[in-house]
Structures are given as C-alpha cells and as structure tokens.
C-alpha cells in the first residue's frame, strides 16, 4: 500500500521537476516504460492471489493513468512556455520603415481630361480625336479663316517645313482642337455631340504660355440647339468639374471666326489670399471661348446650315487643372520634375467617375 503511494509521490514529483522533453521521457521510462517501476509492479500482479490482485490492480492502473496524464500535462505546459520563449525571442522592431514599394502617378492633364470626359459623357457626349499635324484646310479654311485673314496671324502658328518641290501650303501643328469638329462631322454627320481633348501648339513661350498645351473642344449640333443651351451646358460642366453648387457664368460678346454669335465666358470667383474659390466673391475670370457654329463651318463640314445649328466651345485643359488643383506654373506641367509629378500627380487607381465623385 505504502509502495504505491510512494511511487505516486516520487514520480509526480519528478514529472513536475522535469525541465524539458528528455527529462520527462526519462521519468516516463523509469515509471511506466516497459521496464519502469510501475510496469514491473504490474507484472507482479500475476503472482498475487486473486483477492490481492483485486485490490492492487486498480490502484496500479490508476497510478499509471495518473502518471501518464501528468506527463501529458507537463509536456503541454513545457511546449507552451517554449513557444512563449520563442515568441519573446522573435521580437522585431515594428517602427522600422516598410520595404519600399513604388507608387506611380497619373499626370494632372490625364486626370483632368478624364474628369472632363466623365462629365460630358454623362451629358451624352462622345470623345473625338484628330491629328496634331494638320493641313491648313482643317485648321483654318474650314473654320472660316481664309488664307489672308488677319485672324490667322493671331494664332502664332507653327508651320511644317515644305520641300522646295512641294507646292502645297505647309501643314501646321494644329493651333486648336477645332479641326476635329470638321473631321468628325464629315465622317459621322449630324446630329452630334462630341468633345475633343488633345494637344495643340502655338509659337509662344513665356511665363504663362508654352508652345504646346491642351484644349478640349466641345460641339453639339442638332435642329434647335441655342446659345441658351450652351450656357446651361457650360454651367452644368463647371458645377460638376469644380464641384461647387453655386456656379455663375457670364457670357461676354467676342469674336471667333468659326462661331457666330461668339462669347467669351467668365466665371465668378474670389481670389482671397491668392487662393481661387469658384462660386463666390466678386471677381470674374475668363475661362473659355464659345459660340454658335458659323454656317460656313457647317457647310465646310458638309452640314446644311439651314437645317442644323448648334454650339462649339474650347477650353484649356491645363488651365482648368491649374484652377481646380491650385497648380501655379503652366511650364512645370511639361518639365517632368519628379518632385512635381509626385506632388501634383494622382494615384493610379483614382479614376474619375460620376457615381463616386469626379475627384477624391
């Protein structure tokens, strides 16, 4: 009797004292291994009388179970503390800067162009394109600017070189996106609603001019489109583009050879502290030129002006970007200064749309 109790005390004590797996194994072998003390005792059961056996057998079994359980429990506890120890040793400095990744950017001109497209798409305008090296018919004649008209001089046109033997008038780098009007109507006819964003060129380089910049042309032709529709369209556009509810536009008579009547369009704004705010204040800022398409332009594009009428407008994309995003210098747009591209650029997945808002 004493023997079993002793064994129990001895081995449970040794198990509790075991410091690692191998120590536990040693205890296990010594206690319940094939030649362990408890196993040996159990072997002795055979020699006992049945009465003795009935008393001692269950006790020994209970002892064996108890020792096994203690071993399991000790093993689990050792594993837990080993894991805890490992985790303690695996401490890392979470303040260390992360592995660098490269975030690209979208140029403001691309971004703003997509904003403009999204807005006009919502009004039913598709996007038309045309060549940048343009012949003088599309750039001038078809737009009611005959060869010797003084207006031609006002465009600061870049001309392409002409070989001596080639007697055609020199091609030009398109001075505006208006030629796309003609090309589009020639090909697709009317009624039509398009915008035509793209690069245009003028021979001018100073603080506020670059020899290349971006325009977006707008054209809407149908049977009863009026200048009042033009005003509404531009108001809606400005409201959506500048993301302000109160937009006030003012039409001011002007002259463009390709529209009649023509108007410069001013937008109400304030310039408090050098910061532009659209929709408030008392200043007026010119933002675009527009008008009703000249009958001669429609005729040049193969459209009957007695049946169709409509409007056209042209705005500077770069300028719109500058106004909306507070970008100060036009020339920097084309300078590819990495610091500028990162500062004024847009995230690659920041895609303008009408349902999520035109900008973030």
């Amino acid at each position, binding site marked *: 009797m004493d023997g079993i109790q002793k064994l129990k005390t001895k081995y449970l004590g040794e198990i509790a004292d075991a410091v690692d797996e191998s120590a536990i194994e040693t205890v296990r072998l010594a206690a319940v291994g094939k030649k362990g003390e408890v196993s040996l005792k159990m072997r002795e059961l055979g020699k006992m009388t049945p009465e003795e056996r009935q008393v001692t057998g269950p006790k020994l079994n209970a002892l064996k179970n108890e020792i096994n359980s203690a071993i399991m429990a000790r093993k689990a506890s050792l594993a837990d503390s080993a894991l805890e120890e490992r985790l303690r040793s695996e401490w890392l400095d979470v303040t*260390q*800067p992360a592995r*660098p*990744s*490269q975030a*690209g950017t*979208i*140029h403001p001109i*691309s971004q703003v162009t997509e904003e403009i497209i999204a807005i006009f*798409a*919502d*009004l*039913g305008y598709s*996007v038309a394109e045309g*060549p940048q*090296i343009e*012949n003088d018919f*599309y750039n001038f004649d078809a737009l009611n600017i005959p060869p*010797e008209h003084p207006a031609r*001089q*006002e465009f600061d046109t*870049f*001309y*392409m*070189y002409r*070989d001596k033997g080639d007697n055609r008038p*020199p*091609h030009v780098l398109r001075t505006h996106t208006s030629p796309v009007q003609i090309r589009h109507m020639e090909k697709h006819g009317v009624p039509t609603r398009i915008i035509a964003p793209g*690069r245009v*060129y003028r*021979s001018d380089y100073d603080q506020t001019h670059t*020899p*290349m910049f971006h325009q977006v042309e707008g054209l*809407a032709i149908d049977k*009863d*489109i*009026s*200048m*009042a*529709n033009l*005003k*509404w*369209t531009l*108001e809606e556009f400005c409201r959506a583009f500048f993301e302000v509810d109160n937009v006030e536009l003012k039409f*001011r*008579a002007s002259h463009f050879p390709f529209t*009649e*009547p*023509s108007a410069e369009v001013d937008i109400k704004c304030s310039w408090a502290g050098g910061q532009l705010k659209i929709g408030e204040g008392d200043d007026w800022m010119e933002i675009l030129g527009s008008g*009703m398409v000249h*009958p*001669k332009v429609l005729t040049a594009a193969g459209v009957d002006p007695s049946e169709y*009428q409509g409007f056209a407008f042209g705005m500077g994309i770069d300028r719109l970007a500058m106004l909306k995003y507070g970008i100060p210098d036009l020339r920097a747009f*084309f*300078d*590819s*200064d*990495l610091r500028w*591209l990162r500062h004024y650029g847009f995230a*690659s997945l920041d895609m303008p749309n009408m349902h999520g808002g035109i900008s973030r």
Partner: protein
Amino acid sequence: MKFTLSWLKTHLDTEATLDEITYALTDLGLEVEGVEDPADTLGVFRLCRVIEAVQHPNADRLRLCRVETYPDGPDGKIVEVQVVCGAPNARTGLVGVFAPVGSYVPGIDMTLKAGVIRDVESHGMLCSERELMVSDEHDGIIDLPSDAPLGARFIDYTNRNDPVIDIAITPNRPDALGIRGIARDLAARGLGTLKPAPIETVEGAFESPVNVSIDAGVLEKGCPVFYGRTIKGVQNGPSPKWLQDQIRAIGLRPISALVDITNFMTYDRNRPLHVFDVAKVNGDLRVHFVKGGESLTALDDKDYTLDAGMMVISDDNGVESIAGIMGGVASGCTEDTVDVFVESAYWDPITIAMAGRKLKINSDARYRFERGVDPAFTGEGLELATQMILDICGGEASNVVVAGKTPDTSRSYTLDPARVISLVGMDIAQDEQMRILTDLGFVVGDDLQVAVPSWRPDVQGEADLIEEIARVASLTKLVGVPMPRPSTGVMRAVLTPMQKRQGMVRRTIATLGYNECVTYSFIDKASAELFGGGSDGVMLGNPISSEMSHMRPTLLPSLLQAAAKNQARGFADLALFEIGQGFEGGEPEDQKALACGLRVGTTAPRNAYGTARSVDLHDAKADAEAALAALGAPVDRLMVMRNAPDWFHPGRSAVLSLGPKNPLAVFGEMHPKVLAEMDVKGPAVAFTLFLENAPFPKAKTKTRPALVLSDFQAVERDFAFVVNSDVEVEALLKAANGAHKKLIDVVNLFDVFHMDDGKKSIAISVRIQPTAGTLTDKEIDAISEQVIAKVSKATGGVLRG
C-alpha cells in the same frame, strides 16, 4: 486701342459714367484691357494755401507751414493743418497742392501717415510734380498762381481729368478702330446718342499740280480708288496743344501738325492718310505693282527691298511709298514742307496683308487697311483732313483728283427674327432687333432686307446680323436652358475601344510604379536622329528654338531628357512613362499612338531589406507584358524577336510580335552610346508599346468559356539541364511543354546558373495534371523521360547529374 473719354465724347452725347461705359464696351465685345482714370490716382489732391511758413525749430532745412486745406472742395469747410516741409520754395502765401493723411502719393509710392519730424507734428504733405507723377520736376513743391481756386481738385484745375480707356479689338471690327465706331456701338447699346458729323466739302482754288493714275491690273482689286489733292502754303510746325494732348494720351508721340493730323484721322475715323511733300515729288503719282528688287527707305528710316507684285506709289524718280503700309523718306514731309499732296486711298486688305507680312512692317496704316477701312469714306476722309489741315496749318487747297472709283460693297441679307431667337435663345422683340441694326448703321428695308453699311466688311451673311443683335442686346442677359441627353434612360458608354485601351494602359503602367510625364511633341534634331527621326519631313518651318525643331519619332528621347534633368537634380532612380504620339512623317496620317516607359537606376531606394537592385532587361519585359496584357493582347502567343531598333542594346533587347510582321512592343536595355549622348547615367531600360497594333477582341459574347478543373492531385517534377550558354530558355520551355501536351499543365523556370565552360544550367519544374485518374509512379516516370528526351533533342541539353 487707347482713347480718352473726352475724345469719345466728341462723337457720343452721353451722361453715362466711366464705369457704365467700360462695362458696356466689354459686354459689346470691345474688351476693356485697362482704364487709367486720373481721378483714381490723383483725385484726392486739392489746391491749398500756405497761411504761414516759419523756420522749423530743430532743423535748418525744414519749414513749418500752417496750411489752409479744403477736404470737401471749394465750398466745404476749411481745415487748417500743420505740415513740415523741406522744399526751398515753401513760403507764406504759396498756393500749392495738398496731400492729406491717408492719401497714396504715387511718386513716392507711399500712403501718408501723420508723423513727428524732429519733435514737430506733421499732418500731410505739400506735393511736387514728381510726387504726383505728372512730370520730373522736383526742385520744389507745386507753386500755382495766387488766384487759383482753393479747394479745387488738382486734376480739374490742370485739365488732367480725362480717363484713358484701352480696349482690345477683334479682327472682325475694323470700324471700331476709329473712335467714332466705338461711339456708334455705345449709342446702339443705349449709352447716349451718336453726334452728327457732317462732312463739309472744301472747294478747290486751283488745279492740283500732282495727278494720280492707277495701273489697269491694280484698279481691279489692289487699289480701286484713290483721292488726292494739293494744299499749298502750309506751315508744318507743332500741332496745337489740344491735339498734342490727345495724341499723347493715347500713347503716341506728337511729331508735327501734319503727322499729328494724319494720326488723328487714323484713330478718330479709321481713315489712314499719307502726305507727300510736293516739292520732293517728281511728276505725277502712279499706283502699280513692282517688278521686284526695287528698294525704298521708309519713314521708319529702314531700307526695304520689294518683292514682285507688291503695290506701291511711284513718281518719275521711282518708288515713293509702299502703298497702304508706309511712306518713303524721300517724299515725306518735314518742318520745312510748304506744299503737300494728301492721299486718301482704298487699299485691298489681302494685298496689304501679304506685303506687310513679307516686309515685316507693323504700321497703324497696315493694321487698319488689312482689316478693312470704309471704302465709302475715302473721299469724305480727304475732305475732313483738308479742313483740319487748313484750320491748323493754313494754306490753300486744290481741286480733288480722283483715280478709279469707290468699290460697290453694297449688299443686303434677309433677317429672320424667329431665327435670331432660336439661335441665341433669348427673346428679343422684332422691333428691338430692327432698332439695334438701325442704330448700328444698317438699313432695314421691306421684307426684312437688311443693307450692310460700308464700314462693316465683316458682315457677310445673316449669321453676322444675328451676332450684331445678340451682342448689342447683351449676352450677359442670357439664361441657361437645359438640354436633355440625346437618349433617355441609362447613360450609354461613349469611349471607343482604342480610347478605353489608352486609359487602361495608362493606369496599368502607373500601377507598376511609373510616374506619368507629358513632354513636348517636338525635340532637337540630334535627339530625334538617335531614334531614327530628324528628317526634313518632320521638321518645323518656324521652330521656337533649336531644342524644339523636329516632331519626335518616339517618346523615348523626351523621357531620357527628363531622366537626365532629374538626375541633375539628384534623383538617380526613376520610372517615367508617357502616352502620346510618335511622328513617322509630316502628314496628318503619320502619327502613331505610343506608350513608352523608362526605368533608370535601381528598382528601389537603398533599404534595410536589400531589395534595391539595378534595373534590367527583365524589368522592362515584365512591364511591357503587363501593359500588353492590360490592353488585351495575347501575351502568351507573342514571338520574341531579336530585331529591336538600334537605340537598344543589340544583345539585350527584343520585339514582342504577334506573328512576324505585327510588332506590339519593343523592350530592352538602352544602348550605352545613346545614354552617353543624352547624358543619362545608366543602367536604363525601356519599353514602347504600339497601341494601335494589338488586335481588339472579336468575341461578341461576354460569356466566359467554362472553367475546367481536375479533381486529381497534380504532381510536380523538377529537372536541371546543362546546355550551351547561347541556348535560349524559351526553346527549352517549349520543348518541355510539348513533351506531353495533354498532361503537362505548366512548365516553370526557376533557376539559370552559368558555369565556367560555356555552359549553363537551366532548372525547370514541370507540373503534371492528371485528367482521367491518379497517375502511377511508372506513368509519371514515363512523362519525365519524355521531357528529358524532348529537351535534349531541341536544345542538346543533358540532365544535370
């Protein structure tokens, strides 16, 4: 164009304020670019009197003045102030000009504050002319006659209260290049009435000794009519003060009476004239085209050589004047001129524009004739000028000599008042439409036939009439009217597949870590030549600089220039891209849509994880393939061809082609020579996508093909082959892939190791995907044997031991 308010009022009877006038001008399309109103800058300064001037107690050179000021004008209260003044002429009784505390004194660019000068208070300032910026005079303060009206504004007392208005005039409005034309517009707007200006005829007292003829060919178009007359015995001294003042106010310099009169006529009536000195004219005048090669010293003292076909006025000595552009020195007037011949001709706009542009002469006359002066005013203009010359210079006028006849520009158009409303979208009553046209000088006849006045060459149809009505009625009043979408319901997609593709490519490349640039489409010749461009066909005829002389063949040179600039700023590692046009020739159809990307330096900044490494060919390839995948190109099926253009490293570049003749992209390491030429420190790799070349998917359905999955466990087997160094991996991968088309799912390269003996080891893993049942070891071994055999046959590779 500049003009003064008082000049305008010689034609316009108006009570309108300056603000009302400038607002109306801009609204009418005569955009006001600037107003100089003396009342704004000098209106606060009034005449004052020094009651007493005594020595300053603490300063030898200063005087202490008690000044009698009139802050509210002559009839207002009198306020005495104490002023410390340093002027030598400050004395008791002086009548001067007082600047009160709080006023801005332009000449010293300062707003006055009350101050203490050497312990004595001073409340304002007595001004010199320089301080008011009316002259450079600064020897003392302004010293006016003792009977000058105290309290009067300085600008009123000195007749300086005449605002100058500067407006921009669009090329269609030659009539507004004369102040009378501007007045007519304002009158039509309702800002007063146009004053009548009858022209009185001056009877000729003698036969003009100078006659004029126009050559037959010229008469038809170049110069249909020429009026002239001699005026004898003129005195060409300085013009009277009122004329000099007006000439100066609009930014011109008074020269002499005759010149000032012609300038006056130019600005007042848009009627340029020329005056010959009869003493220097030899024989009669003849208007003709030159043969070419003639030369002339013009009134700007420059010599001009004329081209064949230019229009001139000659006498027996030869060419005396470039018609409608500038006269010659030889027959020009001087202070000593006694007898003059005054020319008033109608010159054809196109002929003048062509000659003017070729000769590069920008004169007031050219500017006006090429926009179109009023042909019907040719004779009347001469009469008006004659009277003015007689009034100012004296003398006696001859009869008028006339060659040719005034061209008939009369025309009329039918106006449809309903169309005005439909086009403008404003409800302008028919009566008002007619009233506007009439006030502008149009004549509205029966059946709404509208005759155009002779001074409006720009009006060439009904649309122009509508524009006149709209601008006078005021577009400011326009109220927006909604325009519904062309189709109802959910908005339709509007982008073309190509436009969508460009957007996808742009955003994909940016996602790969590239910064988008927009660079100029023109570039210097040397850079263009490095990239196969720079021919005369893509050259600009009038480049803005030699840095921007040729349309670029591709976007890469621009990106390299951008990289060089950024490297100079201290940024060595870059990934730049641009989407734009490359120009293969100088015709409109020669532009190609390109997307180019350039990586320079390392893939990342130096970092604690050691991920920074030099960019290499394979980065460019990966980027090109990712971008091609974004535009829907079948990247798996592309051929890799070693025929990249020679601005790439010949051994480290390739074309990705869909079939041998349709390149979709090119990628590679930049040629070291190109990098050196463009000042870029390598390594640099780049790709170009030819956006139009990739086919668009033909599938009409949006349904995807069914996904086929196998339930059986896939098996992977690794192989390492030793091959010659020049064997291309692609051949090996293809061979392995082809070893069992049905069961080999993927072949993946996982190691390439170069050995010393001209050999390399290529390690691949082959994934075998059973489809019908789990494979036995034997079957798998059989496939492995096939892989080894195929690879060996295709590449000579042997399994590495």
